[in-house]
């Protein structure tokens, strides 16, 4: 799989994305949703970086900001030595060829009035990579690659099942031979038996075309399966980052521990013996997030300092980062 010290493909530094809340007739800004609040990470070439967390934690916003689908409030996004946040027009368009996205909802992300050829062919035309009859040939080739019948080129999205539509979305994403694909919950809308089909497809394509993925999901079992490294997000911040096996074997942040403990295991014998750490309460509002550590309101280890100081993002073991004042004590949760 990934080599140590692999080349860094994308570097994100101090990324913040605040969405203004506007009220009243003159649309005055009355506050901000702190969707992503100062996160930094690297994506290495050839890896799958998993980004997990519950709804509203900012994982999708992080992914979309990388493609500048949102204009970040502050921060740098460095790809091939260029800061994407500073690129304009044509320069950004060229870079977008190398960074593509697969969306969550295969029903909403394909234009119902376009045929498969038009959907998958559009990026080829926009980027001037094919013309005329060549487009049709390339689209057929791409359909074969994603496991669809090339004879379907003239069909419309509604003629396909959810899983097949997601394959069309994948074909569109790989049409430009990108380096990086941001997969935003690509399987959440699919049935269990279809999820495995799409995940296997993504893994095959990664192997064949040396793709790098940022895989955003809330399903921890699937993230563990597909990822090389995993980042856990909570309310706009990173709480932990580690190699997939390390994160699952030795989680250090109380939230990661609680999250892993909440995932049901499809085995009644295991479930019978499992002791759950149930995190109390709900995720607070990102409009007015808790001071200090964002997780403190639900954390069983929280103390005074957690309300006063935001915990540092520190590397506590090689390639294992955690943001918690009491990470050294968190193992007590696991034994309980």
């Amino acid at each position: 799989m990934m080599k140590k010290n692999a080349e860094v493909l994308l570097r994100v530094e101090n990324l913040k994305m605040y969405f203004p809340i506007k009220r009243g007739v003159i649309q005055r800004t009355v506050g901000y949703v702190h969707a992503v609040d100062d996160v930094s990470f690297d994506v290495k070439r050839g890896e799958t970086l998993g980004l997990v967390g519950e709804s509203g934690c900012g994982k999708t916003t992080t992914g979309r900001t990388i493609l500048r689908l949102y204009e970040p409030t502050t921060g740098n996004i460095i790809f091939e030595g260029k800061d994407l946040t500073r690129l304009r027009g044509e320069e950004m368009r060229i870079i977008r060829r190398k960074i593509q996205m697969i969306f969550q909802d295969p029903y909403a992300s394909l234009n119902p009035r376009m045929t498969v050829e038009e959907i998958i062919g559009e990026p080829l035309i926009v980027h001037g990579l094919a013309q005329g009859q060549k487009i049709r040939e390339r689209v057929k080739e791409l359909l074969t690659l994603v496991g669809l019948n090339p004879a379907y080129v003239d069909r419309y999205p509604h003629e396909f099942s959810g899983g097949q539509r997601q394959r069309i979305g994948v074909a569109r994403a790989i049409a430009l031979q990108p380096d990086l694909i941001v997969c935003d919950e690509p399987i959440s809308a699919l049935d269990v038996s279809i999820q495995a089909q799409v995940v296997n497809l993504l893994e095959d394509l990664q192997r064949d075309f040396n793709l790098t993925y940022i895989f955003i999901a809330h399903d921890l079992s699937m993230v563990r399966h597909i990822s090389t490294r995993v980042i856990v997000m909570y309310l706009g911040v990173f709480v932990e980052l580690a190699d997939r096996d390390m994160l699952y074997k030795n989680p250090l942040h109380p939230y990661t521990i609680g999250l892993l403990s909440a995932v049901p295991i499809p085995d009644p014998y295991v479930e019978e013996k499992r002791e759950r750490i149930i995190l109390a309460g709900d995720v607070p509002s990102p409009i007015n997030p808790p001071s200090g550590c964002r997780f403190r309101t639900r954390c069983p280890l929280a103390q005074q300092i957690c309300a006063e100081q935001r915990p540092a993002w520190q590397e506590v073991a090689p390639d294992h980062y955690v943001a918690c004042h009491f990470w050294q004590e968190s193992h007590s949760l696991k034994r309980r």
Partner: protein
Amino acid sequence: MSDLLNVADLETRFRTREGVVHAVNGVSFGLKEGETLGIVGESGCGKSVSVLSVLGLIPMPPGEITKGSVKFQGKDLLRLSQEELRHVRGAQIGMVFQDPMTSFNPVHTIGKQLTEPLEIHLGMDKKQAWQRAVELIDMVKIPNPEDRLKDYPHQFSGGMRQRAMIAMALSCSPQILIADEPTTALDVTIQAQIIDLVKSLKDELGMAIIWITHDLGVIAGLAERVLVMYAGYIVEESSVKNIYRNPQHPYTLGLLRSLPRLDMNEKKRLISIDGVPPVLFKKPKICPFVSRCSYRIERCLKENPKLSVVEDNHKVACWVDTAIGKERA
């Protein structure tokens, strides 16, 4: 012990513009007192429609229950009037649905919606009903029950709404709680809270539960017995432990293999089930799973297998003994 609820040969169809969809095709099962029964399957397998048919909640038209009986306390629920059914639903069978937002009326307070069934079904006056509502909200562990009852549904978070929904379903101490994907819309830590709550309420109150889900993980920790549904049929039925340790139907096997497990260390390729579930416009004469099945034999293309006993407490609808890959004797 005799069954508390007995569903026999239930068939439900929907008339659509494309044709008559055979959503439920002869489903039979029993529910014992205090038992937790899990019904698993993917979207469109008929798991929700089966249960909604039992409760008389299928919109007719386009829906139609063409066959079957549902015995509950000596009565056939399919033959009751809407009025009689309403009493059964409110007082004896409680329900919780997937979407806790649309299950509540947004223009009334939680308190009003919680006290209403108490006044109607149990004949309480306003004050008694309010008192009971406070107890119920407290029972589902929502803090400050007195204040929260005055809130509107939008003021509750998703998890809290589902707690309130459970409180409402249990308000008249029903013998059966039917939960249709109650945690699907919730985050995993909130799901864990809700499952934990339901388990402790069950220990306390002793009701039977039918829990419908597509999540094999949730069922593993919750149910005692499991029905696996596919294309409107029950394809496998057994105790929860048996289903997971000794799955026999190729579909059940496929589902379990296609799931990555959080507690599995080695990275293996997932084994997916090819193809997609069928939409049945006719009652199939052959096995509905055959086009996706890797075990198929000649007979599967000729006859649709019936759910039959293969060992103690274990029924499977398949011609093939998947353990040996040959036709069952």
